[in-house]
């Protein structure tokens, strides 16, 4: 069953948090994971839930040879 918007935001945040340090997630990876568990979730909900996490600063976009969504961490591309 589709998640209400607030729950969806938290669901995605937990997914990103759990992936930290293990796997870098693209927006599409997140969408596919949500739709696997909640096939009737409109795709646009996922888009806007990610936007909410980014706008609120709880997640950030990163670029390491591709664009990913991650939890914020200390800037340091120079160290990668």
């Amino acid at each position, binding site marked *: 069953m589709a998640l209400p918007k607030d729950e969806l935001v938290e669901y995605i945040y937990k997914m990103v948090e759990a992936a930290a340090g293990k796997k870098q997630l693209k927006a599409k990876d997140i969408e596919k994971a949500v739709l696997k568990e909640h096939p009737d979730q409109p795709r646009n909900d996922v888009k806007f839930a990610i936007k909410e996490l980014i706008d609120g600063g709880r997640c950030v976009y*990163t670029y390491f040879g591709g664009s990913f969504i991650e939890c914020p961490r200390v800037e340091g591309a120079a160290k990668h």
Partner: protein
Amino acid sequence: MHKTPLLDQLESGPFPSFVKDLKRMAAKKPQVNDLLGQLERSYKEKITHWKHGGIVGVLGYGSGIIGRYSDLPDEFPGLEHFHTMRINQPSGWYYTSQALRELCDIWDEHGSGVLNMHGATGDLIFLGTRTEELEPCFEKLTAKGWDIGGSGSAMRSPSCCLGMSRCEWSCYDTMEACYQLTQEFQFDLHRPSYPYKYKLKFSGCPNDCVAAVARADMSMIGVWKDDIKIDQAAVQAYAGGELKPEGGATVYDKLDIKADVTDLCPTLCMSWDGKTLKIDNANCNHCMHCINMMPKALKPGNERGCTILLGSHAPILEGAQMSWVIVPFMKMEEPFDELKDLTYKITEWWAEHGKNRERVGELIMRMGMRAFLEAVELPPVPQSVRTPRANPFFFWHQSDFDAEAAGRKYYTTK
């Protein structure tokens, strides 16, 4: 100032030198002095000292800021951070001098002052700033009506030729189309959600002044469907030398219509008997050669729109690819809904199936044009055949038999 004997050589010779420009900037911006120092070192060692990527950006956006760091920050402290900002350019690259002054003032205050007018995608590029300067710089830019462009795995800032604003050959309003598509895809431009970059470029005619066919994932190239318009009196004037070839842009005084125009027509669909110019329009491939040579005598026809091509890219492994035709003719009228819908369908299919860093053209090569056309609901057309087939086998799907039984018509020459 850092010593730069290798770079200094680039100041000799007749052409303008970026070294001269950077030295001028270095007098007031210490980071530019470090930039010259590090570049000299790279020339000596033949390796780059830049790292790029990371997590820098402005709040809410995942695009448009490219993190850059020196791997020698102790030696070149001005380059510890040297991030790039891409600013979405105005359609057709029209600026007022006041707007340019404002942009330069903002960049002098918040960055190195070094600009690139413009990057390959089309954006105005601000080169070199620190992380803490990004937000204040962005704030000043938006206050003046500017926005950041695309980067990373996102829709890139669309770009266009100046089209109808100055060019009589433009077959549609490139600037309006570019603006409308830029607005439509704002979400995808600022929030990377594709497998890799996606570039839209709009050229008003097949002269393709923005080189869309080679540089854009999706190229909209203006074209006409009916006959080239011929003014026979003007053709005579070219033949007689009263009108100069290419609008006077050559050293030649007079056009030899047979040698310079009809014999160079790639499909040999023109003829000239000394009095009348004839074109077999059904065999014209719209290369623009004849129109470029005799702009006062020949013009694109009245039924105008664009051809849509897809898939150009220059990956390191496979080599550069030009894009190929997917829609031979589309009318280009506001609000460009047909084009927007098609772009959504293509990007959705590609986002669904593409691997990380796989351009849409590469995905089509991997999965086949047939899978692509079916997914985006486009009919297969002869114009999209890029090369003669090299594979003797054809795999029939049940849907082909069903369609045939239901009376599907195949293309014929009639």
